[in-house]
Every structure is written in structure tokens, then in C-alpha cells.
């Protein structure tokens, strides 16, 4: 038996299996199986993770009907959708434009200075999420201990502290979640664009300089036209990641810095319904399945737009 297994592994045809098996197993357990199980849970009335009681019951499409019904009549779910759309739309613009501006700006200053600041901009992405949330909790705090409030009061722009997460509905809470997530995303664009700029032949810049071009002209006439693919890449990639991530705003809502009603996006809503308070996994799974379908379609379109075939050229000269 042992001999046969060894023989099998020696076979050139199946050698690759040893290499891709670990990844394949993890992908099956943690991506494919969860999708299948989510579909199953979405057809059951599972509540409070009481598997014994609810798992055997199938209620058909009731969770989906509930979801769409709530979408029409329940202000909470409607707000989740409005928040998701506003959040994704505005954060995406901030991410792409902010990343572009930072990459261009850091190009035109000395290299030492720019590398320090580029690293600082990585901090939101790499810092522990709990610490990052704590930072913004105090920054936007609604009382006079909040950094922003005390700064504005010092300048004399406001008389008493503003409760940013509750007062100016819906733009107060939206601004906070957009700002907090926007900073995380900016670094992604900045890094991609910086690398793209560094790959552009510098003779172009020097020729333009000799002709008397300004920084602005060099940016808009040389760099941006040559970075079209990268801008598309950052936009589509960031769109998908904004649709599905919720870690950076989870604590802000949990700690009550922003109102739950206007601080909850679709993916955060799924997590809240499944794991916090009175949980309802059937509904969460239904909302999750719809999100996976939307995301899957968007993901496929993304790869088509970016030229998937180009990204997976065959290995050269394999024996």
C-alpha cells in the first residue's frame, strides 16, 4: 500500500497535487463549504445558533421573502441599504482620488520625506483593528473629550460639542464610517499608483520639464494617462473589498460611537444579525447569500475588465 502511494506521488502527472492540495483543502473548507452551508441555513429558521431545534426544519424561501419584505417596509433594512450605497460610493471616490493624489504628491517631494509619509499611511491598514477603532473613538467622541470637538471649539467654530455619530442624520454617522474606512483604503491606491509611476520611463518627465511643464501638467498629461489600467484595477478591487469588509466599523457601532441605524452596512448587518443581540442566522444567511451572488458577479466582471487572460500566462518551458 505504502509502495503504491509513493508510486502515485512519483508520477509526473499528479506531482502538482502535493503542492496545491493544502490550498485546495483550505479553500474547500473555508470558502466553498461555507457558501453551501449558508445556502442551507438560509432555508432554515435557525435562531440563536440552536442547531438541534431548528436545523431539521426547512422553511423554503421564507427568509428571502422576509428580507425583501423588510427591504420595502422596514426602515432599519432600508437604512442599511442607503448606508451601504453611500458608504461604498463615497469611500470608493476617496480611496481612488486620495491614493492618486498621495502617490503624485509624494513623487514631487524628496524621497526621504515621501517614504516616511507613505509608511505612515500604511498604519491604518496594518494597525490592530481594535487600536485603530480606539483611535477614532476618541477622535470623533461626541463630548468635549473628543479630539475633533475640542479642536473646533478651540478655533471657535462651534460653541458646544457635536455628537457626530448621532446628530447630523444621516451625514454625521456616514462621515465617520466613510472617513475611518477611507483612510484604510487610501494606502492601497497609493502603493499601486506609486509603483506604477516608478515604472514609467523618467525620460518622459525630464523631456516635459525641459519644455517647461508644471507638476500638474506632468501629472495629468503623462502619469494619469499611463496609469489607466492601474486606476481601473484599484477602483474595481476596492469596490469589492468595500462591499464585503466590516471589521473597521464593527467596533465603532458596537461601542456606540455611531448610530447603529446609520452606521451599519450590508456586510456588517449580516454579522450583527448572526452574532450580536437576538440572533437570527436564517435571515443573516439569506442576506449573506444574496451578497455572495452580487459579489461573485461583480468579481467576475472585474476580472474580465482587467484582462484575466493576461494575468495568467502559462509557465514558460515546463519540462
Amino acid at each position, binding site marked *: 500500500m505504502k509502495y503504491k502511494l509513493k508510486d502515485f506521488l512519483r508520477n509526473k502527472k499528479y506531482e502538482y497535487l502535493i503542492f496545491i492540495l493544502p*490550498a485546495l483543502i483550505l479553500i474547500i473548507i473555508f470558502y466553498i463549504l461555507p457558501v453551501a452551508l449558508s445556502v442551507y441555513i438560509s432555508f432554515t429558521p435557525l435562531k440563536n445558533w440552536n442547531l438541534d431545534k431548528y436545523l431539521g426544519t426547512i422553511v423554503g424561501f421564507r427568509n428571502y421573502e422576509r428580507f425583501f419584505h423588510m427591504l420595502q417596509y422596514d426602515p432599519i433594512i432600508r437604512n442599511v441599504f442607503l448606508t451601504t450605497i453611500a458608504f461604498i460610493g463615497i469611500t470608493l471616490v476617496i480611496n481612488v482620488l486620495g491614493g492618486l493624489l498621495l502617490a503624485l504628491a509624494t513623487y514631487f517631494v524628496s524621497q526621504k520625506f515621501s517614504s516616511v509619509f507613505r509608511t505612515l499611511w500604511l498604519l491604518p491598514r496594518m494597525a*490592530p483593528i481594535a*487600536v485603530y*477603532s480606539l483611535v477614532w473613538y476618541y477622535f470623533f467622541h461626541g463630548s468635549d473629550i473628543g479630539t475633533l*470637538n475640542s479642536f473646533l471649539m478651540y478655533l471657535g467654530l462651534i460653541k458646544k460639542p457635536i455628537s457626530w455619530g448621532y446628530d447630523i442624520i444621516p451625514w454625521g454617522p456616514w462621515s465617520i464610517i466613510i472617513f475611518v474606512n477611507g483612510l484604510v483604503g487610501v494606502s492601497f491606491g497609493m502603493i499601486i499608483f506609486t509603483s506604477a509611476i516608478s515604472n514609467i520611463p523618467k525620460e518622459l518627465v525630464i523631456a516635459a520639464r*525641459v519644455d517647461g511643464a508644471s507638476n500638474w501638467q506632468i501629472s495629468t498629461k503623462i502619469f494619469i494617462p499611463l496609469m489607466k489600467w492601474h486606476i481601473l484595477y484599484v477602483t474595481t478591487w476596492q469596490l*469589492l473589498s468595500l462591499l464585503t469588509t466590516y471589521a473597521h466599523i464593527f*467596533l465603532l457601532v458596537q461601542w456606540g460611537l455611531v448610530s447603529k441605524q446609520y452606521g451599519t452596512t450590508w456586510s456588517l448587518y449580516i454579522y450583527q444579525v448572526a452574532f450580536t443581540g437576538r440572533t437570527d442566522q436564517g435571515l443573516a444567511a439569506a442576506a449573506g447569500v444574496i*451578497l455572495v451572488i452580487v459579489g*461573485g458577479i461583480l468579481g467576475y466582471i472585474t476580472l474580465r475588465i482587467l484582462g484575466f487572460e493576461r494575468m495568467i500566462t502559462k509557465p514558460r518551458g515546463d519540462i
Partner: protein
Amino acid sequence: MSLRDVEVRARKTEAIIALAIILATSPIIIGFSLIILSSFSKSMVTNFDPSSFHLTLENWINLLQGKSAAVGGLKENILKYTLNTAVVALGVSLVVTLVGTMSGYAISRMNFRYRKHFLLLILLLHAFPGSVLIVGVYFIYRLMSPIAMGSITTFSFFYVIIARASLEIPMAVWLMKGFFDLIPWEVEWAALIDGASRLTVWRKVMLPLVKPGIAAILLFGFLAGWQDLIYVRTFLAEKTLATFIEYNLGTLEFAEMPLVAAAATLYLLPTIIFFITSQQLLLKVSLAGLKR
């Protein structure tokens, strides 16, 4: 240093741009500094009011001795939470590195039958983060978790590590593929013609050649596990620094906030250290998606 621009750039415009960059970065600098500063103060110093700052090391001493008044006099073993965080981070780092180097090699160097499908799958999962599948992942956790209470802690560590690592697998595979792509083929041909198996070539010839890649992926996996909040709070039977901070802010009235600030600073420390020591590596990792 490569040529970037001509030397005759106006100093004045450069200064203006630099100022704009500093201004745009200021919320990040101020926000993080105030938390670190608060950890050395008797009360939080988040409002530019110098009178609220009283220098003290009390928070740090209390924190390290576990004498936290945070949750109604309950003893909090912060060193254990730090250790728990480190175990998760190291575990994620190792799993991500092993899987990434293996599959990255295969899709870079081998031309197997379903290579295209495998790559499409990896790219699709890379584009569409799996954190949204957590309901299903928790369901599997419940199905797999052992009945015996004694082993549940060990199991939860094991589970949180591989579940969290799986989130990073598509990125890791793609990153390592990029590193393997850069190695000349001749090295490998020589070994293969001498009769070495692919596994030997991978282990003895290729891995030493992609050391920068391995360092990058180890670091990247560590930071991913270290920063995590959602998976740890959902699956882990024990507290980490992340959940410690979460629960203590939830009970704000009783919590000693500067103590929490000290915990946050401690939690931030490894990230900062990696920032200072391996800037270039971090930038390289963040570029991983961009291989054509």
C-alpha cells in the same frame, strides 16, 4: 538612486506639496499619538487640554501586574492575552507561508490540467474577500467542535488560526507566485535533469532563492493574525488584546481608560517595530495583487 526628475524643480512648490502631505496625514499622527500619550497619563488626553495630562507610569505597572480595576476589580492577565494574540499571529503566519509557498510554486512553475481553473478560483477569492462567509464558517466550527470542555480551548485556537489564515491564502498564493516567477528557469532545469523530484527541487533549490518572498509572507501573515478582531472574538475561547480592548470600552463607566490606552499601545508595539525595521518588505507585500 535612480533618476526621477530634473534638478531644477522649484523649492517653493516642493515645500507647499510637503505641507499639504503633512496636513493630510495629521489626523493619523494626532490620533495615534494621543492614545500613546494617554497611556502615560492619569486621564485621557484626547482634547488638546494640557491640564488633563499628568505623567505617570501607573497604567503600565498596573497593566503588567494584571492589577486592573477595569471590569469591577476583576483580575486581568494581560500577559496571557498578549501571549494568546501572539499564538494566533504566529499560527496564521506559518500556515499562510507554508500554503503560499507550495501553491505559489505550483502555479508559477507547473503546467497541470486545471491550472487555469485553479488560478481563476484564487483570483476570484482574492478579489472577493471571504470575511462575509463567517456565518457558514461558524457553522462548521459548531459542527466540528469537540464535546469535551477541556479540549475546546485548544480546538478554538486551532480553528481560529486556520480559518483566519484561509482568508489570506488567495493573496499569499498570488504573492508567492510573483516571487517564483522572477527566478530563472535554468536553476530548476539543472536539478530536474539530475533526477530530483519536484518536492526536492522546491525545498532545496527554490525556497532558498525566494527568501525575500518568504520573509515578506511571514511578516504579512503575522500582521494579519495580530491585527484580527472579528475572527478572534467570534471563535476564540480565550481573550486576546483585541477582545480585552473591546470589552473594556463596552463598560466605559467602570473602565480605567488610560489603562486601556496602555493595552492598546502594547498591542500596537509590534506593528510599529515591523514598520521601522521592514518598510520595504511591507510595501512589497502590499503590491502583491499587481502582477501581470
